[in-house]
C-alpha cells in the first residue's frame, strides 16, 4: 500500500490511486481521534519535523497532533528564534535537521516550488504544508475527505470554489484533486483574482459567483489573502463582500443540502458572512477534524506504511 515517490508535493503530481490510498487509510485512522486515550504506537521512534516559514495555526497543530497520536516525536522550527533570522539558507537549515535524525520534514513556505526544492536537497521525505501560491496538497485531501464523509462520492458532484483563486494554493490543490476524482468544478471571483488560463485545468470560470453557486453540491469559500495583495486587485473589502462574498442570499442558489467549506482562517464579513459560516450546512470544523485524520494517514504511509 506504499505511495509512489518519497514526497507529498502536489496533487497535480499525485495519482488518483495514491489519493484513494491516503483517503481510505485516513478513514480507518480517524477512529483513533474519538478514543478516550488518543495514542497508538505506530510511529514510535520516528521524528517528525515541521518547518514553517509562514504563520499557521491549523496546519501546523494538525500535523503535530497527527504525529503525536501515533507516538512520533515532533520538533518544530519557525523563522523567529532560529538561525533563519541570521541568514541561514533553507538548504543548510534542512540538511542540519536531517543529520540530527529527522525522518520527515513538513514545510510551509511563502515561495512556490520551495518544497520541490527541499525534496532535491533532502534524502528524507518532504511533505508540502503549503508553498506560496502553488499547492497545499494535504488541505486538498482533507477537503475531499470531508466531502466524502457527507456525500460518499466525488464523481459528478458540482463544486463551486469562490474568491481569491489567484493567490490560493488551496484552490489549486482542490482543483487537481477534485477533477481527478470526477467532480465538476467551477471557480468564480473578480477577474483580477482568477489566474490566467485557469479553464485549462478543467474547470469552468465565472466572474459572477452566482453562476458558480447555481446548483452546487459544495460551496467552497476561499480566504481573501489580504497579506498577498500587493497591487490594487480590488478596491475595498466592502465592495468585495458586496459583489463576491458568500452570503445567505447567494447560497440560496445552491442545492438545499449543499456543504459550505472554508480552509480558514476566515475573514468574516469579507469572503463569507457569519450567518453562512455558522450555518448548519457549514462543515468548516469537520474539515479541521478531517485534517488530523488525513495527516495521520500521510505520516503513516510515509513513515510506517512501507515494507
Amino acid at each position, binding site marked *: 500500500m506504499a505511495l509512489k515517490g518519497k514526497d507529498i508535493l502536489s496533487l497535480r503530481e499525485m495519482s488518483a490511486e495514491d489519493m484513494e490510498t491516503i483517503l481510505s487509510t485516513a478513514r480507518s485512522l480517524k477512529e483513533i481521534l474519538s478514543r478516550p486515550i488518543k495514542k497508538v504506537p505506530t510511529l514510535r521512534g520516528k521524528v517528525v519535523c515541521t518547518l514553517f516559514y509562514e504563520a499557521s495555526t491549523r496546519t501546523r497543530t494538525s500535523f503535530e497532533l497527527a504525529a503525536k497520536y501515533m507516538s512520533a516525536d515532533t520538533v518544530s522550527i519557525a523563522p523567529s528564534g532560529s538561525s533563519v533570522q541570521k541568514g541561514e*539558507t533553507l538548504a543548510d537549515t534542512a540538511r542540519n535537521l536531517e543529520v540530527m535524525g529527522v525522518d520527515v520534514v513538513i514545510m510551509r*513556505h511563502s515561495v512556490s*516550488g520551495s518544497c*520541490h526544492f527541499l*525534496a*532535491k536537497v533532502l534524502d528524507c521525505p518532504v511533505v508540502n504544508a503549503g508553498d506560496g501560491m502553488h499547492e497545499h496538497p494535504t488541505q486538498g485531501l482533507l477537503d475531499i475527505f470531508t466531502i466524502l464523509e457527507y456525500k460518499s462520492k466525488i464523481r459528478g458532484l458540482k463544486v463551486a470554489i469562490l474568491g481569491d483563486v489567484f493567490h490560493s*494554493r488551496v484552490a489549486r490543490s482542490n482543483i487537481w484533486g477534485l477533477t481527478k476524482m470526477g467532480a465538476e468544478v467551477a471557480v468564480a471571483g473578480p477577474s483580477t483574482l482568477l*489566474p*490566467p488560463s485557469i479553464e*485549462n485545468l478543467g474547470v469552468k470560470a465565472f466572474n459572477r459567483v452566482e453562476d458558480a453557486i447555481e446548483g452546487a453540491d459544495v460551496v467552497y469559500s476561499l480566504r481573501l489573502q489580504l497579506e498577498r495583495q500587493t497591487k490594487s486587485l480590488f478596491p475595498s473589502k466592502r465592495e468585495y463582500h458586496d459583489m463576491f462574498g458568500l452570503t445567505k442570499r447567494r447560497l440560496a442558489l445552491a442545492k438545499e443540502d449543499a456543504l459550505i467549506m472554508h480552509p480558514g482562517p476566515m475573514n468574516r464579513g469579507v469572503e463569507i458572512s457569519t450567518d453562512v459560516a455558522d450555518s448548519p450546512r457549514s462543515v468548516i470544523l469537520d474539515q479541521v477534524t478531517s485534517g488530523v485524520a488525513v495527516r495521520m494517514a500521510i505520516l503513516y504511509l510515509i513513515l510506517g506504511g512501507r515494507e
Partner: protein
Amino acid sequence: MSGDLFIRNGRVIDPLSGRDEIAGVLVRDGKIAAVGCGIDGGAAPVIDATGKVVMPGLIDLHVHLREPGFEEKEDIESGTAAAAMGGFTAVACMPNTEPPVDNDAMVTSLLKRAREVGRVRVYPIGAVTKRRAGKELAEMGEMKAAGAVAFSDDGSPVATSEVLRCALEYLKSFGATLIDHPEELSLSEGGQINRGLVSTIAGFRGIPAEAETIAVFRDIAIARLTRGRLHLTHLSTKESLDLVRQAKSLGLEITCDVTPHHLTLTEDAVLETAYDTNTKVNPPLRSKADVEALKNALADGTVDAIATDHAPHHVDDKWVEFDYAENGISGLETSVSLILDKLVRPGVISYLRMAELMSLNPAKILGVEGGTLRERAPADITIIDPDFEHSVNPRQFLSKGKNTPFEGWRLTGAAWATIVGGEVRMKDRKLTS
C-alpha cells in the same frame, strides 16, 4: 612565424561574400591573406579542417563578465576562457558590474585586464547613465574614446523615455549603438516566469509578454523620433518581433538579437525540471508560439544577431527558493552547440545565416572589425566540428557559472577551434596555453 596559419580543406563560410565551399584559408601576420582552392600554405603551420566548418570568428554582443565586483560569479579570465571554448573570438561585456562601467577609467581598466588575462577580444559596453541609475547621461563620449563600443543600462531598461531620447540623440554624435533591455517594470514586478497557464499551475505571479512589447514599442517610437541607432537585446516574444519587423520596413536603423535559450526552451521547462532555478531568466522563457515566432524571425531576417546574454552565477545564487534565485543562464559554452543542433541541423538556418547572425552582424552592430574572412580582415576564425556528439556537462564549463538548464542535453556539433588574430586559442576542444 606567429600569426601565420594555413587552414586546409574546411568548408569555408563567409557571409559577407556568400562563400560556402571547401577551400583553404591562409593567415599571415594575424590577418587573412588568401581564401580559396589550390592555395599554397607555404611554411605556415597547418590546421587540417577536413570535415569541419570554417567561419569568421563568432562575436557575442551580450555577455556579463562580472568583473569588477562579482568575481565569485565570473571574471575576465574565466569568462574569456569560456568564450574561447565556446567558439567566440570576441565578446562585448555589459556594464552592470560593481562599480558599473560608467566612465572612461573603468573602460581603460577593463581593457587592460583583458590584455593581461583575456583569451579572446573583449569589447566593453559602457553605461548609458551614471551608475546605471537612469537619471543623468554617463560620459559616453569619453568612454567611446577609451574603447567602449556601445552603450547600455542592461539589467535594466533605459529608465525613462526622455533619458532614452537624449541618449539616442547624443550617441549620434559618436556613431555608437545604444543597446536597450526592453522591460516595462511596473508590469513585470514580482513576476517569476512567463504569464500564462504555466505560471497559474506553478503558482507564480507571471510576467506578461506585454512587459516586453510595451518597452519595445516605446524604444522604437523614440528611435523614430531621434533616428538614433538602437539595438534591442534578448527579444523573447512574437509581438516584439512583429514590431521590429514593422520598424525595419519603415527604414529605421533598429537591430535586435535573440538568445539561444529563448530559441530552444519554453516556459514548460520550469515545471518539467521541478522548479530548477536555472530556468529562471529575464526575460522569462516564453510560450511555444513565441519560440516558433523567434525561429521564423531568424529565418526571415527580422533578427539580426544571436547573443547569449551569458549570465554566470555562483551556485549560492541559484541553490535557493525560486523567488530568491538570481536571473540568468551561463551561455557561452552551450550557444554554438545549441544553434548547430537545434537550428542548423534541422534546416531552420544555414551555416551562412548562422555566421551572419553570430559574427558579421554583431561586428556591424558593435562597429568592430571582424565578421568576415575576406583578405586583410583580422584572422579571427571559428572552426566548427558539426559531428561532435556530446552531453552538456556544466562541471566541465570553464566559466565559473555552472548555471545551465541544458545539463544532460545530448547535442551534436560544437566549436572545434578558436583563432584570434591568427593565434590559436582553442583547438580540438582544448585551450592552448
